[in-house]
């Protein structure tokens, strides 16, 4: 198979591209939509909103989630907010500014036309969510409130306390459940997708496993949509939910979908530092805390005094010092690297010296305890639960942690992967955030893809298929995919290995975090690739999975996911190694300015790196990026 990257960006000005595309796509007549079956995998913001909208349009939709209910998808944990270019605050925002900020924030590694479209539909998302009853924060006059959020100089973020993701997800989930009641969505919970079936060059369906009974079954459709999120859990410790995994996109990759920019991962600056080896995941403290908290470390290395005993002139407010214009609100990648530099210089704080302070003392004396409590009460409480320390009295300790992956399956303007009929939406695709995502933009992108983009673009693929029936699930293509899945399960259950799945996952995470975390360099990446391959080998022959395949077996589920994480990690390192520049979240130590800032190489690396799976050495394909509306510049937040 020869893989061709054709972005299908419509002609015409960037402002007209989406309109032109919508006018030019082939349409499916409303009464014919019920003749098409679409499979949606994943029920986060992107999946649930897509399933609801496709069903409302009239398509027959089948939805799979490995959760016990669609509402548990990890979108639920997003705290801070969702951006839109409403300009309700009259502070100079516009669609173009949101577009500009997103391109710049992404360090000029995303596709202009996609990002402009994202900014265009952002306003409709707020309207849609409000109509569904999402309880966004309001002013006393009854109108919607906004706040500024990580790295933006306008107030364009809508929020529902510290639970914006939860409320938006419930809106999408409820819209989808309305379609379940209407019989237009068939919902399969506790069912995990284990393969995509591609036949004669087109996606035909999926093979899934019922997690309660172990039953393997095949499901066919005219198109398949993956909305299965990102791969931060390759690092083991991340802010992602425990079960978040890359299996769906990785197995799609093995069936021909190119994987784009795998090394573009986001390390979020405000997480609670790990306390010990048994730590199972990391907890994010909303970025909104940086609006009022001041970040500092002691000036003197190894200073063990408690924070309140360190006088003002012996503290280093390093973000305010290095970036006076943005201060504590610099973009995530910049803030994370600065914190790492402090900890590496032995100026970290806390019992393990693995954090920096986020201090609210000034804000409390300026605004009063009540204001701080009303803004951040639930976050302070959460912090207190986890650490046993009261942030009203003692500064919080924070440290960066893997949080989001900008990389993902390569998609064209229609959100279709390199496999015809296979789409990827939300965090599962690579599309809009370039090398770094701005705060409050993940919810925006997930819902833009699911509510407003995919439901339009998919018609263009389906229209010519009118009158065709999906491949018979008994077809040889399905049977052989099922057989592979069964063989894999048999293999893992028959091993009597040395260590648990979690043990291997933790070891993998350590290697990946060291070599492919916040700072990367060539020799370390090369060494990590060797170590990952060796550990993977040991895993395949030496993991211990107990139990059977006929009842709930959580170790077996994890074994499959970790097996894939090994390969994802390998590709992340390979991509990081090949990208001999620093951009956004990808920081190569060999490529930095004298001040230690990321140094891009637009002459040689202004492209999307899309990797083709071969079973051996993957093949690199390049989609060149051209910038006609925003001229690439060195990002400066000083």
């Amino acid at each position, binding site marked *: 198979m020869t893989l061709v990257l054709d972005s299908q960006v419509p002609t015409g000005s960037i402002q007209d591209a989406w309109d032109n595309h919508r006018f030019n796509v082939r349409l499916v007549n409303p009464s014919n939509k019920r003749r098409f079956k679409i499979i949606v995998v994943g029920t986060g913001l992107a999946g649930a909103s897509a399933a609801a909208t496709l069903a409302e349009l009239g398509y027959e939709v089948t939805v799979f989630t490995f959760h016990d*209910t669609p509402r548990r998808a990890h979108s639920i944990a997003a705290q801070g907010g969702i951006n839109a270019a409403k300009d309700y605050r009259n502070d100079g925002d516009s669609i173009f500014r949101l577009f500009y900020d997103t391109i710049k924030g992404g360090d000029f590694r995303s596709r202009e036309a996609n990002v402009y479209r994202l900014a265009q539909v952002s306003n409709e998302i707020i309207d849609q969510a409000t109509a569904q009853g999402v309880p966004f924060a309001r002013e*006393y006059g009854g109108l919607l409130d906004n706040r500024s959020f990580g790295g933006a100089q306008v107030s364009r973020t809508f929020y529902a306390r510290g639970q914006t993701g939860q409320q938006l997800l419930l809106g999408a989930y409820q819209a989808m459940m309305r379609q379940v009641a209407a019989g237009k969505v068939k919902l399969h919970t506790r069912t995990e997708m284990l393969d995509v079936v591609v036949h004669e060059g087109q996606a035909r369906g999926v093979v899934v496993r019922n997690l309660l009974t172990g039953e393997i079954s095949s499901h066919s459709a005219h198109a398949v949509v993956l909305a299965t999120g990102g791969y931060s859990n390759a690092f083991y410790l991340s802010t992602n939910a425990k079960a978040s995994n890359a299996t769906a996109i990785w197995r799609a990759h093995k069936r021909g979908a190119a994987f784009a920019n795998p090394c573009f991962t986001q390390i979020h600056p405000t997480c609670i530092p790990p306390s010990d080896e048994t730590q199972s995941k990391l907890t*994010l403290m909303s970025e909104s805390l940086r609006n009022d908290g001041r970040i500092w470390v002691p000036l003197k290395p190894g200073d063990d005094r408690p924070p309140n005993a360190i006088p003002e002139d012996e503290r280093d407010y390093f973000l305010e010092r290095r970036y006076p214009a943005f201060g504590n609100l610099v973009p995530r990648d910049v803030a994370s690297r600065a914190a790492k530099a402090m900890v590496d210089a032995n100026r970290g704080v806390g019992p393990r010296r693995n954090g920096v302070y986020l201090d609210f003392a000034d804000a409390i004396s300026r605004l009063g305890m009540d204001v701080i409590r009303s803004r951040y009460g639930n976050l302070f409480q959460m912090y207190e639960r986890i650490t046993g320390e009261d942030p009203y009295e003692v500064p919080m300790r924070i440290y960066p942690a893997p949080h989001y992956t900008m990389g993902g399956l390569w998609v064209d303007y229609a959100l279709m992967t390199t496999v015809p009929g296979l789409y990827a939406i939300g965090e599962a695709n690579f599309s809009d955030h370039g090398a770094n995502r701005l705060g409050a933009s993940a919810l925006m992108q997930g819902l833009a893809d699911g509510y407003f983009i995919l439901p339009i673009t998919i018609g263009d693929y389906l229209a010519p298929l009118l009158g065709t029936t999906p491949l018979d699930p008994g077809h040889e293509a399905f049977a052989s995919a099922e057989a592979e899945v069964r063989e894999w399960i048999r293999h893992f259950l028959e091993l009597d290995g040395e260590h648990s799945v979690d043990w291997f996952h933790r070891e993998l995470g350590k290697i990946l975090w060291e070599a492919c975390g916040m700072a990367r360099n060539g020799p370390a990446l090369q060494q990590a690739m060797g170590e990952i391959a060796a550990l993977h080998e040991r895993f395949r022959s030496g993991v211990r999975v107990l139990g059977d395949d006929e009842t709930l077996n959580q170790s077996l589920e994890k074994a499959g996911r970790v097996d894939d994480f090994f390969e994802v990690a390998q590709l992340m390192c390979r991509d990081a190694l090949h990208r001999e520049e620093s951009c956004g979240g990808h920081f190569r130590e060999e490529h930095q300015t004298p001040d230690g800032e990321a140094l891009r190489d637009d002459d040689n690396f202004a492209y999307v790196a899309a990797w083709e799976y071969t079973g051996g050495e993957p093949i690199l394909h390049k989609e060149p990026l051209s910038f006609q509306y925003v001229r690439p510049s060195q990002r400066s937040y000083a």
Partner: protein
Amino acid sequence: MRLTLRIWRQAGPDAPGDFETYDVDGISEEMSFLELLDVLNERLIGEGREPIAFDSDCREGICGSCGLMIDGQAHGPQRGTATCQLHMRRFNDGDVVTVEPFRSAGFPLVKDLVVDRSAFDRIIEAGGYISAPTGSAPDANLIPVPKDDADRAMDAAACIACGACVAACPNGAGQLFTAAKLAHLNLLPQGQPERSMRTRAMVEEMERYFGSCTNHRECEAACPKEISIDFIAMLHRDYRKARRDS
């Protein structure tokens, strides 16, 4: 810290179940309760014994996956806290701790500490939504919502559908869950057109799975989001009104 754990083990829905006792040593107070189970599971796997099945995902108190009865209390001894946010500093060296699933007729047992809470999905499916097909919405600021109403709606909408309310209730009632969703939608202007229909449908669906409320208030005490039973009063009011109007 050293604890003795009595944990409910049951191989499947129809298999007999019983408590098994495990001594766990070297527990740090920084660990969460679920991390304690992780450590125990690692040990069991090492010994060739099947690990304990339990649900969890986000581990930051928002997804609603986790939920254990700890010494007879849903989500354990700390108010307003889901099991995943409960840390071992709440326990003392030498404690004997009993861990059970969220038992209720409405939540059939799946395995060990895992139960089936899909009845909640059925209640939402019955009417827990505002019909607003994608694309049809007016500008968001066209519908002003008084701040107090929006805030109260948010108080109710904070429900994470963990099922602690049902597990804590001596009647196995699903009122607090249902009332929270009804209040969220019924308090908002956008929710008015379907208010009666929604209330009847959701309450009647709820009654297919869950018991009746007799005001024990155990649900409110167990709720990790501290949702008030005032919303149950609102449910009753709305339901009577809906019956009368139809």
